[in-house]
């Protein structure tokens, strides 16, 4: 086929395109995914019994802000990586600074503890399930985000997949906080972060072969 013939074909298919379509689609998907994750937390894990009391404390919100911040950085990166010629560097820098701040706080807290207390802080009551739970909760949201990302034009598929996983993991970890009673910087910086990272890794691997176009 001649290229001019193809161009005639494409011109015949040239309807108007709405502005801000990618961001809107991603936000809609995120909303739907968040509802699914919330239902999973409620139906599968249940709320923490002391939720009302915990929500009166500062750390409950600090923990939520940390994971929500990671999720927001992921969302921002996905939105940018889905559009050719747009760099995700600002989103990456934002996510990295949040991570750095929280890890520094955890190091300070950890080194301020005596040996046995530190071990208790590291293990908490749920270190064996925390990372796994976050990765499972993130899965449906990750699937939705990758489906939408596939309709966009990620020129860096692996990185875009990682960003989708970090977004899903961050949001899932935030809602997981409604169930999980852990309340130290040390625990959250270790196992919550690992959960988000695992979700990001899964996204990167899928992105590597599935986000190509």
């Amino acid at each position, binding site marked *: 086929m*001649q*290229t001019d013939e193809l161009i005639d*074909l494409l011109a015949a298919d*040239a309807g108007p395109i709405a502005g801000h379509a990618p961001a809107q689609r991603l936000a809609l998907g995120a909303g739907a995914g968040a509802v699914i994750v919330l239902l999973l937390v409620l139906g599968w894990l249940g709320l923490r019994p002391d939720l009302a009391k915990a929500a009166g404390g500062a750390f409950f919100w600090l923990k939520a802000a940390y994971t929500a911040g990671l999720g927001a950085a992921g969302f921002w990166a996905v939105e940018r990586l889905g*559009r050719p010629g747009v760099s995700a560097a600002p989103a990456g820098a934002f996510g990295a600074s949040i991570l750095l701040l929280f890890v520094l706080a955890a190091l300070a807290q950890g080194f301020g503890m005596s040996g046995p207390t530190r071990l208790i802080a590291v293990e908490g009551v749920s270190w064996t399930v925390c990372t796994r739970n976050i990765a499972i909760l993130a899965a449906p949201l990750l699937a939705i985000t990758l489906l939408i990302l596939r309709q966009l034009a990620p020129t860096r598929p692996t990185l875009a997949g990682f960003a989708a996983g970090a977004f899903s993991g961050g949001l899932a970890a935030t809602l997981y906080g409604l169930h999980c009673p852990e309340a130290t910087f040390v625990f959250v910086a270790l196992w919550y972060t690992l959960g988000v990272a695992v979700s990001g890794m899964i996204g990167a691997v899928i992105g590597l072969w599935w986000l190509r176009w």
Partner: protein
Amino acid sequence: MKTDANPIIATVRLAAKLHKPLGANVRACNERRHRDEYGDGVDELESTLKPLMLAGLNGDAKAHAQLLKCLSERLRAYFVRRLSASPDEVEDLVQETLLAVHLRRATYDRAQPFMAWAHAIARYKLIDHWRRRKIRATTPIDDVSDFLASPPVDADAGLDLTRVLSTLPLRQRALVEDVKVRGLSLSEAGLRGGLSEGAAKVALHRALKLLAEKLRHADR
């Protein structure tokens, strides 16, 4: 971007840029090849193509066709230099990239420079092409100014697209052939196939998506 050594040429060019009507876009695209030696291609092409892209996004099919025509010349020149070992694949890649530009134009942000968007797609398609054929890049992948500066090359026919078209479902293929070969409008072509204009629109869009998908795997 280089600046003009000759202030008279620079002034004339600036004046031309300020007074250029939108209708002169294609002419500007064609004339640009003669100006390459002066090195003022970036702004020129951006200011030519971006209005066409914006008009196309608002549903102006004519502007969209002009944009793709002009872009196809850039793409051909860009790919030729990087596929010197397999020149017969150039037109296939040009067509694959045009399809991608068209089908994914919703990812273009109207506030963004158009050439940055187009270059990122062309670059991605080139890397993807190399990866699929397991060819390591021997020519460095250059930046956007290089994408703009390559000299134009004549077009061949795309072989893959012809082949892939024959594998489309019958109805879609008939629609595509009617629009492409017989030059019918979409509503006329739909009528021949017993489709309303709306259904023909949907069918054509689906056919193009399928073509793009099959084209990526055409060489396997």
